């Protein structure tokens, strides 16, 4: 219990530092929260839901890993956890407003719950926490930088809080702090790798298909093409 408390206090301090960095780095005159347009809300819902439904087989595979491999299964599952975190960085990258990743990942949790995720209601809390931490990754740079490294940070931060209820749910708290920290590191690497590999290619494909009209990334791409330079999403 004391380890969990220390963990929570450290997470709270990290979030406070991220909030300060957001206030320092955000564009001058920009409000702390910016309302979402209807199309942005729908995009978050659709991406979150699809990621959730596609994530359910992932969750079942994770359950099998843990059933047949015990403690090693939890570590193996950690390696594929990045798949659950993609909706947050993806929506954050497309919409570029505070809260986009949180809402998308919460929708991801809803979809997982409804499509038969074997972990039940806790996936809603997990979705919210991983989305919130993905948003923290973007907030650190004031929602102004959209490079691969920022995407990797957003994906890597996703499991930071989400792992706490999961460790308790799966009963791995008794395995000790070093074991759980190792699982966290694997999850963070997995989150970063998935974000690096998937977010920009998926976004570019969606922009080309013309289904992201009205979003920040589509405007940026249109601006890049109009000026004749290489679109920013294609740059590293």
């Amino acid at each position: 219990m004391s380890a969990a408390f220390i963990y929570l206090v450290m997470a709270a301090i990290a979030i406070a530092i991220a909030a300060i960095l957001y206030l320092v780095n955000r564009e001058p005159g920009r409000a702390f929260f910016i309302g979402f347009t209807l199309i942005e809300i729908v995009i978050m819902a659709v991406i979150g839901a699809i990621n959730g439904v596609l994530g359910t087989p992932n969750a079942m595979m994770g359950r099998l890993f843990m059933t047949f491999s015990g403690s090693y299964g939890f570590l193996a599952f950690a390696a594929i956890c990045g798949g659950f975190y993609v909706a947050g960085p993806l929506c954050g990258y497309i919409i570029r407003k505070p809260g986009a990743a949180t809402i998308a990942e919460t929708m991801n949790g809803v979809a997982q719950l409804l499509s038969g995720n074997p972990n039940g209601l806790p996936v809603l809390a997990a979705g919210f926490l991983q989305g919130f931490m993905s948003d923290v990754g973007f907030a650190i740079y004031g929602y102004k930088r959209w490079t691969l490294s920022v995407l990797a940070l957003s994906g890597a931060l996703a499991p930071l809080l989400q792992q706490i209820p999961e460790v308790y749910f799966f009963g791995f708290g008794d395995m000790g702090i070093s074991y759980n920290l190792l699982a966290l590191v694997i999850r963070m690497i997995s989150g970063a790798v998935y974000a690096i590999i998937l977010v920009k290619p998926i976004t570019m494909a969606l922009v080309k298909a013309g289904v992201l009209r009205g979003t920040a990334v589509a405007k940026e791409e249109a601006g890049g093409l109009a000026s004749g330079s290489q679109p920013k999403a294609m740059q590293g």
Partner: protein
Amino acid sequence: MTRGNVFQFRAGKSVFHRLDPMSKLIWLLGVSLLAFGAYIAWIQIVISFVILATALFLARLSPAEILKGTWPFIAACSSFFVIQSVTLPGSTIAFRVFSISIYAESADYALASSLRIYTIILSSMVFVRTTDPRDLAIALVTQAHIPYRIAYAFFIALRIVPTIEEEIKIIRAAHAVRGVARQRSITGRIGEMQRYVIPLLVGSLRRASMMVMSMEGRAFGAYPQRVFVDAPRMRASGLVISISTIVAVVAWYSALGLGYVHPIYVFAPA
């Protein structure tokens, strides 16, 4: 009926169908908190029986439907129980199977873990089968006071989920027409998923953008508040279930906190 269909709303006249969504959400949250409460076999057995009785009598799910919806999890929980019972350490030997010692402590812990997973799955199934997504979205606005634009995003997600499986079938058929063979291996299936993601997203977002045009054409979002003709309300039965659930959760965690029960209890003698 596929397992996916079992995890979908179906209209009915059971007690749970007539309950408002917020009461059921409180019940679901309470069940999850109780199941999370401790690694104690006897309490998990009690909770499992209560949830099973709720599914059978209050939600009127047939045993066949419950079995169809949860058999993969029954198999997984059973294997989870067997493997943990065999592999976890303990001190009190309960019995031996093929010269392998089964400890009372590990069996108790394994049974609690397995039943906890199954309880949560079954309670989720009861909630999903008896709750109309539209009523849930309205309840989030009228009862939980969530901004209605966000609640509608939730509603859209609820509407999209059942169509995704159909969409995947259409994309798979389109690929097959073009000569792409279906993969049966695990790596092949992962590759298939990668091929499906973009068409799935493009198709869904295209339909969603039409939905947005339609909603904006009806002045969605023009006013800060929204009213509903048939908003669900918490009735006496909902109030009873909500209060009973909250009392059970508070009582259980108080008992744990005050030391009346131990978070890890074993049948084995001290």
